[in-house]
Every structure is written in structure tokens, then in C-alpha cells.
């Protein structure tokens, strides 16, 4: 591999007091190359553009400058930090005759794997992690769109995730633009592009981001493509004209309730058939809406706030199967006549779960579930980070479930026997023993009758 920025060199850039040392090449793509660099003792990544890319995308530098000034909408973006232009003496050391520029960003930590590794089945991760990743993706786009910006080209290729926590990093933020301004040439990635973009009827913006976001969330949740059903099987050679039909001219959602033409095939599309029923109707409905009416009418696509809400509710009702330990998300019956849902994995009927009642909603008491500010304050947006509390198994007896105080305030717990005690930050209270926990944000109350007092 030939690197434009010579490895080992220390280069001066305009406006930087210290030289930047080029440590090693990290990768090369169609737009440019990414190097690991050292700036003032700190390791960062530097993306350097090919001259052809700079020539072709004449608003690139302007967009980057504006993105840098706007600062990252959320920590989930690997956002540009600074634009770098070589000084005349550094220019002579580049393996490129025309000037060019690049931008600094943080390095992607090695624990983050490509979202494509998940879709290819190469990562071991829980449904909880995948749902958390989707929620953070919705959070990130909510924050981006709230700043009046749009991304234009989200796909599996520029999303990375940490398998244990579901944390995400969105890379390649150089197409980010003010929504509606259209200073840029990228259209998106086929399969993720909204039909109106693919057919050349509109330019990418926040509306088409919503389509791409729905596709990406679907692909993460199902490891399948929302438009590859029987209509795909009818295609012998999956080339550009075929993709145009499948995703642009006549897209049919594989689970469209009315149009059954594109149902998944039991043999070829098994992933979709297995994973789709795992998710609750409230979440499925957003796909039906986005990939139904929303295909032709961008205003009907599920909004980032709707994704945040449906995904947090799905996580709130997560229940572990007592037999196989798998995660289940179907709501519990609200009436006695309704049948209990069965585990998607082992078909065991799921027992009625223990709910923790909160001022805004309820969560099922299951290890790994988190409680957030939005569970107390209706004005807070639903989100998955900065939990106030989480449910943890006891370190020596996993059958004992505790509610852990993740806030920096001391809580008071009233036990079933009537005793009261303090729960300092970082400590947990046995859920089976607690009648109610008082936090400064509001109460947390298990929804059950306390066993008759032993006293």
C-alpha cells in the first residue's frame, strides 16, 4: 500500500503549533486514506482525501468546516475535530502533487466491530446489545436532525458497534450537510437509499435519512433485508437494474400486511422468519409504516422519536426465559383470558413477569434492564444511556436480582417487612425484599403483593 502521507514523517499543518507525526496507515477507501497520527502526545485518526475526491466534491471542505464548528451531535459520531491543510514545506513531502486536505477525528477503539460483522453472523452478542445499538442509532439521528443537519449515506458500512454494550460509532461524517441545502454529491448506498433518491426524483436529506435509518435498524434486528423476499428469488442475476426494481420501482416490504407478493422464503430468507416474531407489535408497526405508506410519502416514515420510544419500550419489557435464559420482548397479557407469550427459542410459556412501576411506565425486572430519567420525567426524551438504575444479578447467587443505584444520590428503600434503609450510589437492593425505593426523581415500586409479614 502506498500512503499519501509518508509513514514516520512529522508534518506541519496550517494553524497547528506542533507537527503531526504520521504513525501508520489504517485503511484506504474510495475517497482517501486514514492514518493513525500523533498530535501533541495524543493518538488520533487523520483522513486524507485523494485529489480526485476533492476535485469531484467541491463543497467537501465547506461542509467539513461547518460540521467541525457545529460539533458532534452525540458521542455516537466519530466526528471531525479539525481540518488540516499542509504548510508549503509539508506539501513537498506528500506523495501527491496537488495540495489536498484532511481532517482529524478520534481513533475507533478496537472493541468496536463493523455492523456488517453482526449481519454476517460473526459476532456473539445479545438481543439486548443489538436493541441498545438501534436505540443509540435513533438517538444519534435524533440529535443530528435536531441540529438541522442530515447524514445522507448511512449504511451498514459506516456503523460500528461494541458487542457487549451495544455502544455505536457512526463513521464517515463527511457527507453531513445542512438539511435541504444539498451541498454535496453523495446519493446514498443502494439498499439503504429511499426510493425517491434511487429513482432520481429527490435529493438526499433528513427525509431520506429516515428511510435509511429504518432499513439499518431492520437489518440489525433481523440480519435480513426488508425488501428481499419472493420477489428477490424471481431475480436470476442481482445486478443494478434488478436492485432498482427491488428497492426503487416496486419495493414491497417482506412483511407488508396487505401486499403479500414479497413474503420471505422459508429456505432462503430463514433469518427474517425467525427474528421478526421476536419483536413486539409496537416496534413492528414502525417498519410496516416506514416500508408501507412511507415508501412513497416520506412524511409517513417513522420519526427518530418514534424509534426511540418503541425501542425503549421493547427494552423495558425484556424478559428472560426461565428455562433457556433467552431474551423475550413480547408484552405480557393484560387480561386473564389472554394467552401468555412463549419463548421464541424454546417455546416455554413465559410466567407473568415482575414489573417495577415508575412514574412514567414500568420495566420488567430482568438482569441488564436499565431505568432512565425518562421513566420519571415525561419531558425527557426516551434514550438508552446514562441510566439512573439497573437490574443486576447478585455476584455469588445469580438467582437473586438487585436494583442498583447508578445515580450520585442516596436512595431510601422500604422493605416488605416495613424496615427502611439507605441505598448509597453503587449499592443494590434485593428486588424480592423491596416494597418501594424512593429516589430524588420519584418512586420505584415492584408490582406485586408483598408476602404476608413474617413478623
Amino acid at each position: 500500500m502506498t500512503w499519501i502521507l509518508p509513514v514516520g514523517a512529522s508534518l506541519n499543518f496550517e494553524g497547528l503549533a506542533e507537527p503531526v507525526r504520521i504513525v501508520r496507515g489504517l485503511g484506504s477507501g474510495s475517497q482517501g486514506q486514514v492514518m493513525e497520527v500523533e498530535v501533541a502526545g495524543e493518538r488520533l485518526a487523520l483522513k486524507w482525501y485523494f485529489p480526485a475526491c476533492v476535485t469531484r466534491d467541491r463543497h467537501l471542505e465547506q461542509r467539513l468546516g461547518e460540521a467541525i464548528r457545529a460539533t458532534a451531535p452525540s458521542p455516537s459520531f466519530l466526528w471531525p475535530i479539525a481540518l488540516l491543510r499542509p504548510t508549503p514545506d509539508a506539501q513537498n513531502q506528500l506523495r501527491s502533487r496537488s495540495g489536498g486536505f484532511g481532517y482529524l477525528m478520534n481513533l475507533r477503539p478496537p472493541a468496536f466491530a463493523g455492523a456488517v460483522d453482526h449481519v454476517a453472523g460473526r459476532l456473539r452478542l445479545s438481543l439486548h446489545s443489538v436493541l441498545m445499538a438501534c436505540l443509540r442509532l435513533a438517538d444519534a439521528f435524533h440529535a443530528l436532525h435536531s441540529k438541522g443537519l442530515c447524514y445522507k449515506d448511512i449504511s451498514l458500512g459506516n456503523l460500528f458497534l461494541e458487542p457487549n454494550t451495544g455502544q455505536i460509532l457512526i463513521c464517515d461524517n463527511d457527507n453531513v450537510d445542512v438539511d435541504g441545502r444539498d451541498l454535496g454529491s453523495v446519493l446514498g448506498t443502494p439498499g439503504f437509499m429511499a426510493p425517491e433518491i434511487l429513482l432520481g426524483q429527490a435529493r438526499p436529506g433528513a427525509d431520506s435519512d429516515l428511510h435509511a435509518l429504518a432499513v439499518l435498524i431492520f437489518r440489525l434486528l433481523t440480519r435480513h433485508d426488508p425488501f428481499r423476499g419472493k420477489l428477490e428469488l424471481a431475480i436470476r442475476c442481482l445486478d443494478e437494474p434488478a436492485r432498482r426494481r427491488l428497492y426503487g420501482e416496486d419495493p414491497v416490504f417482506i412483511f407488508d400486511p396487505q401486499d403479500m407478493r414479497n413474503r420471505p422464503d422459508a429456505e432462503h430468507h430463514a433469518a427474517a422468519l425467525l427474528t421478526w416474531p421476536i419483536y413486539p407489535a409496537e416496534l413492528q408497526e414502525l417498519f410496516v409504516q416506514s416500508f408501507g405508506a412511507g415508501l412513497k410519502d416520506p412524511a409517513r416514515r417513522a420519526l427518530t422519536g418514534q424509534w426511540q420510544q418503541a425501542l425503549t419500550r421493547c427494552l423495558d419489557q425484556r424478559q428472560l426465559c426461565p428455562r433457556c435464559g433467552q431474551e423475550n420482548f413480547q408484552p405480557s397479557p393484560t387480561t386473564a383470558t389472554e394467552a401468555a407469550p412463549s419463548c421464541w427459542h424454546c417455546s416455554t410459556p413465559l410466567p407473568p413477569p415482575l414489573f417495577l412501576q415508575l412514574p412514567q411506565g414500568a420495566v420488567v425486572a430482568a438482569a441488564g434492564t436499565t431505568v432512565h430519567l425518562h421513566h420519571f420525567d415525561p419531558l425527557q426524551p426516551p434514550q438508552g444511556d446514562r441510566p439512573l438504575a439497573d437490574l443486576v444479578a447478585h455476584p455469588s447467587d445469580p438467582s437473586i436480582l438487585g436494583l442498583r443505584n447508578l445515580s450520585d444520590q442516596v436512595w431510601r428503600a422500604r422493605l416488605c417487612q416495613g424496615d427502611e434503609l439507605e441505598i448509597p450510589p453503587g449499592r443494590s437492593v434485593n428486588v424480592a425484599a423491596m416494597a418501594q425505593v424512593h429516589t430524588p426523581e420519584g418512586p420505584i415500586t415492584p408490582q406485586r403483593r408483598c408476602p404476608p409479614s413474617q413478623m
Partner: protein
Amino acid sequence: MPSFPNVRLASRPLHFIYLCDCSGSMAAQGKMQALNQAIRQSLPGMARVARDNPEAQVLVRAVCFADRAQWHVPTPTPVEVLQWQDLQAGGVTAMGEALELLAEQLASPPMEERALPPVLVLISDGQPTDDFESSLNNLMGLHWAQKAVRLAIAMGHDADLEVLQQFIGTDPATGQAFASVPDGGISSEPSLGLGASGGRSPRRPLQASNATALAQYIQWASTAVVGAASMPASRIGGKSNGEGNIPLPELPPTLLDPVDDIGPVVW
């Protein structure tokens, strides 16, 4: 431990087939060695692209042709397990026979009912010595040959560019079967990349005048083109790379040719 269901995205085969000229002239000036090296060196990058494209199952084969044509890698082999055995030069240029062998394999069956567009890469330094045209006509009667991404690399200046252009098909820029091809190697022009000057286009024979250029084209075909034919990449508005059923990625930027390492010889 709870885990995501053990399922993954269904994939389609992507057949990648090299057609390598092994005639006697390839023995001159280290051309045969350069080609063997270029293909061998390109395999890790190709495997990486295959890994990044779970929708495609990238399977590699190779035909070599000299006095006769024969399968050099007969079995469709997943790129991550492929070990490239050196080709040997010697003989004439039975290019037409190579196309016959290819045609047998692109008929359905043995081709799968459903696949991604095959990628066919013809590499030659000379002129066919057998009946190229009727073999090409026979090949192009096949569905999968028509759907295939057909690329050609001319090694040195003696390659028959007209024949290579016939293999690729009509030049979309000129509508002619053949257009003059500038050198694809070292360029001192700050190229705009793609055929902007009416010059290089992936739908014309790629002229490799030295080992570095050859390696770049092989790498480009085995990574960028495989990527484009399997999982589509970001799309840029405006001009596309001519018509075709797969939009071809930009050629490798010649500007990146290292100035201090231009390869051993100029052929």
C-alpha cells in the same frame, strides 16, 4: 448466556474468473512473474472485501491459455482459502479456446440459478492465434456472460486492444468498439480520476505498462469491482461510469504511483 439467534444474511455466489495469457511472450521481461505476483498479492485484499460483503460468496477460478487453454483453478474456490500456483509461460495464444472453456462454465447449469453478476478479467500481452471471434460470439450468447462484468488488462504495448475491447463490449463513451487507450501507468497529469479527459475508463482495456500498474489494476479488479458487483457502495450523483448493469468503481488514482518505486522494467 442469551444471544442473538444463530442466523445470518443469505448470500449469492459471485464468480470471479481470471483468463490469463501464458503465451511464450509472457516469459519476456518478467511479465509472467509480475502477473503471478500481482494476483497472489491481491488475494488478502480480495478476501477482506469478501468478508465485508456478506451478501456475496466470492468464488475464484482461473483459466490459462497458451498452445491450449486449460483450467488453472478449476474449482470455484472461496477467496480466503485460495492459494495461487504460479502460471508458466510458453506457446501461442489460444484465447478463443479459453473463451470456450469459460462458456461451458457460464451455461446454466453448471451456473447456479441465482447469482450476482460474474466478474471476468481477461489479461493478455498479445493477439489470439485461434478463432477468437466465433468463440466470443458463442460466449456472448449466454445469459451469464451478458450479465458479467467484463474487464481486460493489456500487458505492454503489443496486446491486441481491439480484441480486448471486443471482449469488454462497446465503448460507452464513443459508441465504437474500440478507442485509443492512454497509458494507465505513471501519469504526471493531476488526473481527475475517471475518464474526465476522455482517457481511462474501466470499460476500455486497462493498459499496464509496468509491474506497478499491473498490480494496481489487479488489485482494483479484485477488490473495488468485486465490491461493486456484490454489495453496492455509496453512490455519487452526476456522471456514472458509462452504462452497464454494474456501475464500475473509479480506477485506481495514477497519482498515487510512488515516484521512487516505478517497478523493474518498462516493457
